[in-house]
Protein backbone atom coordinates (compact mmCIF):
# COMPACT_ATOMS: atom_id res chain seq x y z
CA UNK A 1 0.00 0.00 0.00
CA UNK A 2 0.96 3.60 -0.53
CA UNK A 3 0.73 6.34 2.06
CA UNK A 4 1.74 10.00 2.27
CA UNK A 5 3.95 11.09 5.15
CA UNK A 6 4.08 14.73 6.20
CA UNK A 7 6.62 15.96 8.73
CA UNK A 8 6.37 19.21 10.67
CA UNK A 9 8.64 21.59 12.56
CA UNK A 10 11.97 20.08 13.61
CA UNK A 11 11.08 16.64 12.19
CA UNK A 12 11.82 18.17 8.77
CA UNK A 13 15.44 18.82 9.71
CA UNK A 14 17.61 16.40 7.70
CA UNK A 15 14.50 14.55 6.47
CA UNK A 16 11.74 15.92 4.24
CA UNK A 17 8.49 17.85 4.26
CA UNK A 18 6.29 15.37 2.42
CA UNK A 19 7.01 11.99 0.84
CA UNK A 20 5.11 8.99 -0.43
CA UNK A 21 5.97 5.64 1.10
CA UNK A 22 5.34 2.07 0.01
CA UNK A 23 4.39 -0.13 2.97
CA UNK A 24 3.44 -3.73 3.58
CA UNK A 25 -0.19 -4.45 4.38
CA UNK A 26 -1.04 -4.29 8.11
CA UNK A 27 1.62 -1.64 8.71
CA UNK A 28 1.27 0.63 11.69
CA UNK A 29 2.34 4.23 12.33
CA UNK A 30 5.27 2.66 14.17
CA UNK A 31 6.53 1.23 10.85
CA UNK A 32 6.68 4.76 9.42
CA UNK A 33 8.64 6.06 12.41
CA UNK A 34 11.35 3.38 12.51
CA UNK A 35 13.05 4.08 9.14
CA UNK A 36 12.81 7.82 9.89
CA UNK A 37 14.69 7.30 13.13
CA UNK A 38 11.89 8.92 15.12
CA UNK A 39 11.01 7.28 18.43
CA UNK A 40 7.30 7.08 19.30
CA UNK A 41 7.92 9.14 22.45
CA UNK A 42 9.36 11.94 20.29
CA UNK A 43 5.97 12.40 18.60
CA UNK A 44 3.66 14.86 20.32
CA UNK A 45 0.74 14.23 18.02
CA UNK A 46 0.18 12.02 14.99
CA UNK A 47 -2.73 12.69 12.66
CA UNK A 48 -3.90 10.06 10.18
CA UNK A 49 -6.30 11.66 7.71
CA UNK A 50 -6.75 14.47 10.22
CA UNK A 51 -7.58 12.34 13.28
CA UNK A 52 -5.15 11.94 16.18
CA UNK A 53 -3.98 8.35 16.67
CA UNK A 54 -1.20 6.53 18.50
CA UNK A 55 1.81 4.67 17.11
CA UNK A 56 -0.06 1.35 17.10
CA UNK A 57 -2.69 2.64 14.67
CA UNK A 58 -3.12 0.39 11.61
CA UNK A 59 -2.61 2.15 8.31
CA UNK A 60 -4.46 1.61 5.07
CA UNK A 61 -3.80 2.43 1.45
CA UNK A 62 -4.08 6.13 0.66
CA UNK A 63 -3.67 7.35 4.26
CA UNK A 64 -1.98 10.66 4.98
CA UNK A 65 0.13 10.66 8.13
CA UNK A 66 1.17 13.95 9.73
CA UNK A 67 3.80 13.86 12.49
CA UNK A 68 4.51 16.71 14.93
CA UNK A 69 7.23 16.98 17.59
CA UNK A 70 6.40 18.56 20.95
CA UNK A 71 6.75 22.33 20.74
CA UNK A 72 6.55 23.44 24.34
CA UNK A 73 8.57 26.61 24.84
CA UNK A 74 7.21 29.86 26.07
Amino acid at each position, binding site marked *: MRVTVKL*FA*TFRDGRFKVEERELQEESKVLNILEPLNIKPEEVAICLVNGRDVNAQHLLKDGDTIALF*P*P*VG*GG
Partner: protein
Amino acid sequence: MLEGRYVRNQETLTDQDQNKLLASSVAIVGCGGLGGYIAEELARIGVRRLVLIDGDRLEVSNLNRQIMATEASIGQWKVEAARDRLQRVNSEVKVEIIKEWFAEERGTDFFSEVDLVFDALDSLATRVVLERVCHQLKLPLVFASIAGWYGQIGVSLPGDFSVLRLYGHGDRGVESKWGNPAFTPAVLASLSVAEGVKLLIGRIPALRRAWLQVDLLTMEFERFELPSFESI
Protein backbone atom coordinates in the same frame (compact mmCIF):
# COMPACT_ATOMS: atom_id res chain seq x y z
CA MET B 1 -8.03 58.46 30.74
CA LEU B 2 -5.54 59.84 28.20
CA GLU B 3 -7.63 61.26 25.38
CA GLY B 4 -7.00 59.56 22.07
CA ARG B 5 -5.16 56.58 23.57
CA TYR B 6 -7.35 54.07 21.76
CA VAL B 7 -8.10 56.07 18.60
CA ARG B 8 -6.13 53.67 16.43
CA ASN B 9 -8.09 50.69 17.77
CA GLN B 10 -11.21 52.19 16.22
CA GLU B 11 -12.97 50.57 13.27
CA THR B 12 -11.17 47.32 14.09
CA LEU B 13 -12.85 47.59 17.48
CA THR B 14 -16.21 49.32 17.92
CA ASP B 15 -16.76 51.57 20.94
CA GLN B 16 -18.71 48.70 22.46
CA ASP B 17 -15.78 46.30 21.86
CA GLN B 18 -13.34 48.77 23.41
CA ASN B 19 -15.58 49.14 26.44
CA LYS B 20 -15.69 45.38 26.83
CA LEU B 21 -11.89 45.29 26.79
CA LEU B 22 -11.73 48.15 29.28
CA ALA B 23 -13.89 46.05 31.61
CA SER B 24 -12.01 42.79 31.13
CA SER B 25 -9.59 40.93 33.33
CA VAL B 26 -6.96 38.59 31.91
CA ALA B 27 -4.44 36.20 33.46
CA ILE B 28 -1.17 35.36 31.72
CA VAL B 29 0.54 32.23 32.99
CA GLY B 30 4.23 32.46 32.23
CA CYS B 31 5.93 35.82 31.77
CA GLY B 32 8.78 34.90 29.43
CA GLY B 33 9.06 35.23 25.68
CA LEU B 34 5.39 34.70 24.90
CA GLY B 35 3.90 36.10 28.11
CA GLY B 36 5.87 39.34 27.90
CA TYR B 37 4.61 40.20 24.42
CA ILE B 38 1.08 39.06 25.27
CA ALA B 39 1.04 41.38 28.30
CA GLU B 40 2.49 44.26 26.26
CA GLU B 41 -0.18 43.97 23.56
CA LEU B 42 -3.05 43.59 26.04
CA ALA B 43 -1.88 46.67 27.96
CA ARG B 44 -1.66 48.68 24.75
CA ILE B 45 -5.03 47.57 23.36
CA GLY B 46 -6.63 48.46 26.69
CA VAL B 47 -7.77 45.76 29.07
CA ARG B 48 -8.74 46.70 32.62
CA ARG B 49 -6.71 44.22 34.64
CA LEU B 50 -3.75 41.92 33.99
CA VAL B 51 -2.69 39.13 36.34
CA LEU B 52 0.89 38.03 35.61
CA ILE B 53 2.07 34.71 37.01
CA ASP B 54 5.70 33.58 36.93
CA GLY B 55 8.05 32.30 39.63
CA ASP B 56 11.24 33.08 37.73
CA ARG B 57 13.81 35.88 37.69
CA LEU B 58 15.34 37.45 34.59
CA GLU B 59 18.67 36.16 33.39
CA VAL B 60 21.09 37.15 30.66
CA SER B 61 19.89 34.44 28.26
CA ASN B 62 16.40 36.03 28.30
CA LEU B 63 17.66 39.20 26.59
CA ASN B 64 17.49 37.71 23.09
CA ARG B 65 13.69 37.52 23.09
CA GLN B 66 11.90 38.63 26.26
CA ILE B 67 10.54 42.13 25.81
CA MET B 68 10.49 42.77 29.56
CA ALA B 69 14.20 41.91 29.91
CA THR B 70 16.77 44.70 29.82
CA GLU B 71 20.39 44.66 30.93
CA ALA B 72 19.36 46.69 33.98
CA SER B 73 16.61 44.26 34.96
CA ILE B 74 18.70 41.07 35.10
CA GLY B 75 18.05 39.33 38.41
CA GLN B 76 14.67 41.01 38.91
CA TRP B 77 11.46 38.99 39.13
CA LYS B 78 10.05 38.67 35.63
CA VAL B 79 6.59 39.76 36.75
CA GLU B 80 8.05 42.86 38.48
CA ALA B 81 10.01 43.88 35.41
CA ALA B 82 6.85 43.33 33.37
CA ARG B 83 4.70 45.42 35.71
CA ASP B 84 7.23 48.29 35.64
CA ARG B 85 7.26 48.33 31.87
CA LEU B 86 3.49 47.98 31.51
CA GLN B 87 2.82 50.84 33.93
CA ARG B 88 4.99 53.10 31.76
CA VAL B 89 3.09 51.98 28.66
CA ASN B 90 -0.42 52.25 30.13
CA SER B 91 -0.87 53.38 33.72
CA GLU B 92 -4.63 52.89 33.36
CA VAL B 93 -4.20 49.11 33.39
CA LYS B 94 -4.27 47.43 36.78
CA VAL B 95 -1.34 45.02 36.85
CA GLU B 96 -1.26 42.36 39.56
CA ILE B 97 1.76 40.11 39.90
CA ILE B 98 2.18 36.66 41.38
CA LYS B 99 5.77 35.52 41.98
CA GLU B 100 4.91 31.84 41.95
CA TRP B 101 4.87 28.93 39.56
CA PHE B 102 1.44 27.89 38.43
CA ALA B 103 0.03 25.02 40.49
CA GLU B 104 -3.29 23.25 40.22
CA GLU B 105 -4.40 24.02 43.78
CA ARG B 106 -3.71 27.75 43.28
CA GLY B 107 -5.94 28.10 40.22
CA THR B 108 -8.98 29.40 42.09
CA ASP B 109 -6.91 32.14 43.78
CA PHE B 110 -4.90 33.08 40.71
CA PHE B 111 -7.93 33.30 38.43
CA SER B 112 -10.32 35.09 40.78
CA GLU B 113 -12.49 37.47 38.69
CA VAL B 114 -10.56 36.62 35.52
CA ASP B 115 -12.37 36.41 32.16
CA LEU B 116 -9.66 34.79 30.04
CA VAL B 117 -6.40 32.91 30.56
CA PHE B 118 -3.32 32.81 28.33
CA ASP B 119 -1.04 29.79 28.47
CA ALA B 120 2.48 31.12 27.93
CA LEU B 121 4.16 28.34 29.89
CA ASP B 122 7.28 26.42 28.97
CA SER B 123 6.39 23.04 30.46
CA LEU B 124 4.29 20.48 28.61
CA ALA B 125 2.97 18.89 31.79
CA THR B 126 1.93 22.20 33.37
CA ARG B 127 0.11 23.19 30.19
CA VAL B 128 -2.13 20.16 30.56
CA VAL B 129 -2.82 20.99 34.22
CA LEU B 130 -3.60 24.60 33.32
CA GLU B 131 -6.18 23.53 30.74
CA ARG B 132 -7.85 21.26 33.31
CA VAL B 133 -8.00 24.08 35.87
CA CYS B 134 -9.40 26.55 33.32
CA HIS B 135 -12.10 24.10 32.34
CA GLN B 136 -13.04 23.45 35.95
CA LEU B 137 -13.37 27.20 36.46
CA LYS B 138 -15.27 27.57 33.14
CA LEU B 139 -12.60 29.87 31.76
CA PRO B 140 -11.57 30.13 28.11
CA LEU B 141 -7.90 29.49 27.40
CA VAL B 142 -5.64 30.64 24.58
CA PHE B 143 -2.51 28.49 24.35
CA ALA B 144 0.68 29.04 22.40
CA SER B 145 4.06 27.36 22.33
CA ILE B 146 7.35 27.93 20.55
CA ALA B 147 10.57 26.16 19.58
CA GLY B 148 13.12 27.47 17.12
CA TRP B 149 11.40 28.61 13.91
CA TYR B 150 8.16 26.92 14.93
CA GLY B 151 5.09 27.52 16.98
CA GLN B 152 1.58 26.36 17.74
CA ILE B 153 -1.43 28.34 18.86
CA GLY B 154 -5.06 27.53 19.56
CA VAL B 155 -8.10 28.13 21.75
CA SER B 156 -9.48 25.67 24.29
CA LEU B 157 -12.96 26.19 25.71
CA PRO B 158 -14.31 23.99 28.52
CA GLY B 159 -14.64 20.41 27.26
CA ASP B 160 -12.29 20.78 24.28
CA PHE B 161 -9.09 19.13 25.61
CA SER B 162 -7.00 20.62 22.80
CA VAL B 163 -4.01 21.13 25.07
CA LEU B 164 -4.20 17.60 26.44
CA ARG B 165 -4.19 16.19 22.93
CA LEU B 166 -1.36 18.38 21.69
CA TYR B 167 0.90 18.41 24.74
CA GLY B 168 -0.18 15.37 26.74
CA HIS B 169 2.56 13.13 25.31
CA GLY B 170 6.28 13.53 25.56
CA ASP B 171 8.03 14.99 28.56
CA ARG B 172 10.18 17.63 26.93
CA GLY B 173 9.65 19.94 23.96
CA VAL B 174 12.17 20.34 21.15
CA GLU B 175 12.85 23.91 22.30
CA SER B 176 15.38 22.46 24.75
CA LYS B 177 17.55 21.75 21.70
CA TRP B 178 16.43 24.43 19.21
CA GLY B 179 16.10 27.37 21.58
CA ASN B 180 13.85 30.37 21.05
CA PRO B 181 14.96 33.21 18.76
CA ALA B 182 13.50 36.72 19.04
CA PHE B 183 10.90 36.53 16.28
CA THR B 184 9.03 33.34 17.18
CA PRO B 185 7.57 34.44 20.55
CA ALA B 186 6.59 37.81 19.07
CA VAL B 187 4.62 36.14 16.25
CA LEU B 188 2.93 33.53 18.43
CA ALA B 189 2.10 36.09 21.13
CA SER B 190 0.44 38.35 18.56
CA LEU B 191 -1.60 35.46 17.18
CA SER B 192 -2.63 34.60 20.75
CA VAL B 193 -3.75 38.13 21.52
CA ALA B 194 -5.76 38.31 18.29
CA GLU B 195 -7.69 35.21 19.37
CA GLY B 196 -7.94 36.40 22.97
CA VAL B 197 -9.38 39.78 21.98
CA LYS B 198 -12.09 38.00 19.99
CA LEU B 199 -13.04 36.00 23.07
CA LEU B 200 -13.11 39.13 25.23
CA ILE B 201 -15.34 41.11 22.85
CA GLY B 202 -17.67 38.21 22.16
CA ARG B 203 -16.58 37.29 18.64
CA ILE B 204 -16.00 33.71 17.55
CA PRO B 205 -12.34 32.64 17.83
CA ALA B 206 -10.92 31.06 14.66
CA LEU B 207 -8.90 28.33 16.34
CA ARG B 208 -11.33 26.52 18.61
CA ARG B 209 -10.96 22.71 18.37
CA ALA B 210 -7.99 23.33 16.13
CA TRP B 211 -4.48 24.65 16.16
CA LEU B 212 -2.37 26.71 13.84
CA GLN B 213 1.01 25.19 13.04
CA VAL B 214 3.42 28.05 12.36
CA ASP B 215 6.64 27.50 10.43
CA LEU B 216 8.68 30.69 10.09
CA LEU B 217 11.37 28.94 8.07
CA THR B 218 9.04 28.10 5.17
CA MET B 219 6.51 30.82 6.15
CA GLU B 220 3.73 28.24 6.18
CA PHE B 221 0.77 28.66 8.51
CA GLU B 222 -1.31 25.51 8.48
CA ARG B 223 -4.48 24.83 10.43
CA PHE B 224 -5.22 21.39 11.87
CA GLU B 225 -8.50 20.28 13.37
CA LEU B 226 -8.97 18.70 16.79
CA PRO B 227 -12.59 17.57 16.50
CA SER B 228 -14.39 16.78 19.73
CA PHE B 229 -13.97 13.23 21.03
CA GLU B 230 -17.68 12.56 20.48
CA SER B 231 -17.34 13.01 16.73
CA ILE B 232 -14.35 10.65 16.39
